[in-house]
Structure formats: structure tokens, C-alpha cells
């Protein structure tokens, strides 16, 4: 599932509980849910903290207002977890976020999220002439090849079986 930078509930693609063995699930049904807004909020806050803590704010010159290191994800958040669930985060340079919520004992899925971006999102959304790349508030990715691609992608992982 992916969440755009501007709006909290831009594009989400169903909660697929990896590792629980459930086949099916729902797609785009929680976009207006408060949960997705909270998720965006928490990601925004922890990204800010993690960049802020490493940021050298001792230089007070005028050039320090633009920090190229935060643009390039100088200190990326890889995941966060509670004792109940684990949330893996992959963020592109443009601020597009790919998030997957899994069981606590799941291995790190950041590489898989990068692969998802490269093998599914890029060809099916960005390079797809018929699909919009920029979304208004309330709009979501609803093109079939993307949804099927995401489905097929998660199914092939060991966690899903």
C-alpha cells in the first residue's frame, strides 16, 4: 500500500495481513478511515524526529534553511513496532511512502517494498499512459494491473504462505 506525501489518505491499497495466511482482503476501503490519517501522522512525526536528531543545527547561516540531506533521506526510518504489530516503511525521494503492516516476528520487508516500487508501481502507474500519477484528495489508484500486481507480489513471498 502506498500513501502520497500531501494528503494522508491519498492512495492505499488494502490491508493485506502478511503472515496470517488470509487470502483475499480488501482494497482501498480504509482510505477515509481515521487509521490511515493516524498512520500518516505517525510516519510524518517519526521521520521528522529522526532527521532532526542527526541534523546539525549549529550553523545559523542563511543557507542552512534548505537541507539537501533531508531530501535524500539522510536518516531514513526503516520500521517501527509495538509488541503487537510491526510497520515497515519505504519512502521514495519524492515523498511517496510504501508501508506494510505485519506480524511482530516478520523479517525486515524494506527490500521487498523497494522491489514492489520498482517492479509494480513504476511499470503499472508511472509508465502506464492510462493511469494518472498525481492524485487529488479522495482519489486512489484503482487500475486493475496494479492491484493484481501488488497481490501477486505479496503472494510470492514466504511470509504469505
Amino acid at each position, binding site marked *: 500500500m502506498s500513501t502520497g506525501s500531501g494528503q494522508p489518505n491519498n492512495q492505499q491499497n488494502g*490491508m493485506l*495481513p502478511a503472515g*496470517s495466511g488470509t487470502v483475499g482482503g480488501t482494497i482501498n476501503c480504509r482510505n477515509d478511515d481515521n*487509521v490511515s490519517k*493516524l*498512520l500518516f*501522522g*505517525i510516519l510524518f*512525526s*517519526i521521520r*521528522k*524526529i*529522526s532527521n*532532526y*536528531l*542527526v*541534523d*546539525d*543545527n*549549529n550553523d545559523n547561516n542563511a543557507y542552512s534553511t534548505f537541507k539537501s540531506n533531508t531530501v535524500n533521506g539522510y*536518516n*531514513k*526510518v*526503516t*520500521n*517501527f*513496532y*509495538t*509488541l*503487537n*504489530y510491526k*510497520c515497515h516503511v519505504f519512502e521514495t525521494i519524492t515523498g511517496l511512502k510504501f508501508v506494510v*503492516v505485519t*506480524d*511482530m516476528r516478520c523479517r525486515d520487508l524494506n527490500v521487498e517494498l523497494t522491489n514492489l516500487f520498482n517492479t509494480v508501481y513504476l511499470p503499472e502507474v508511472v509508465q502506464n499512459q492510462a493511469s494518472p500519477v498525481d492524485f487529488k484528495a479522495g482519489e486512489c489508484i484503482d487500475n486493475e494491473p496494479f492491484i493484481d500486481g501488488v497481490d501477486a507480489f505479496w503472494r510470492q513471498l514466504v511470509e504469505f504462505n
Partner: protein
Amino acid sequence: MAVYSLYIISKSGSLLYQKDFNVVNSPISKHNTNDYLVIASTLHGVHAIASKLTPKEAMGNYERSRLPSNSNRYGLQCIRTDRFNICVYQSTTGLKIILITSKDLSDLSVLQLQSKLYEYYTDFVLKNPFYRLEMPIRLKLFDDKVQSVVTSHNV
């Protein structure tokens, strides 16, 4: 194996104690007092939001956790970033002990250190007759104890 900084946050979210440890190659930069307050209250909020985010199916997963039982059942446990981990410990009374550590520290050893710090908090802060609850901790003895237990960890 290093602990970069320590935050102690009261149950209402105010920062009681903050300490940056002198570690070689620490990724944490110096900030002013105001920044520490902002970081502490953000972490307090994030901890609460994380428990709200728990999926229904995952509600009872904490029972299967291999960590020794602690009172942080639903809240945020750890944030992993490229350069450090932020680990949260919550006592039964809602006091949070947050450690920013290097990435090679295991969950268990962080938890042990945090419970040790909590023990020091109860012994040297709460039992101090001059300390008033919910006020910032400025006690020399506690400071020394924290410094020594963390330095022994930072080898």
C-alpha cells in the same frame, strides 16, 4: 554497542530528564532545551498513536512476545532508522524511559538497561524527600548513577 541519549518522560508527557552521552561518532547532534522538549512530547504522542493503530487481528500478539513481561503492551516499542534505534520503555505508572541507541544493541539488552534505569529512578529520585513529582530531575546522585550504568554499557 552504544547508548547515545536518554529521555525520561512523565505520564503526562513532560520531559523530566534528558542526557546526551559522550560517544565517539555519535550521530546525535547537540540541541537546545526547547528542542529536547519538542522531541520528548512528539515521542509521547507517537507512542499513544501507535497503540491506536493496532490492527484488530493483532490485539493479543503481545502475549507471544519473547521479551520479559513489561507494561508497554500496546504502545510503541521501537523505531528503527538507518543510523540509530529509539527504544521506549513504559512503567506501570506511565513513566517512559526512552533510549536512543546504536543499531547493534539487541531488544533484550536495551530492555535490561531500561529496567535498571527505572530501578535507579525509583531508588534515587522517588525516594529523595526533596524531589517533587512531575518536576524536572536535577539530582546529582541520580545523574552519577545513570552516567555509570550507561558508560559501563558503552564499551
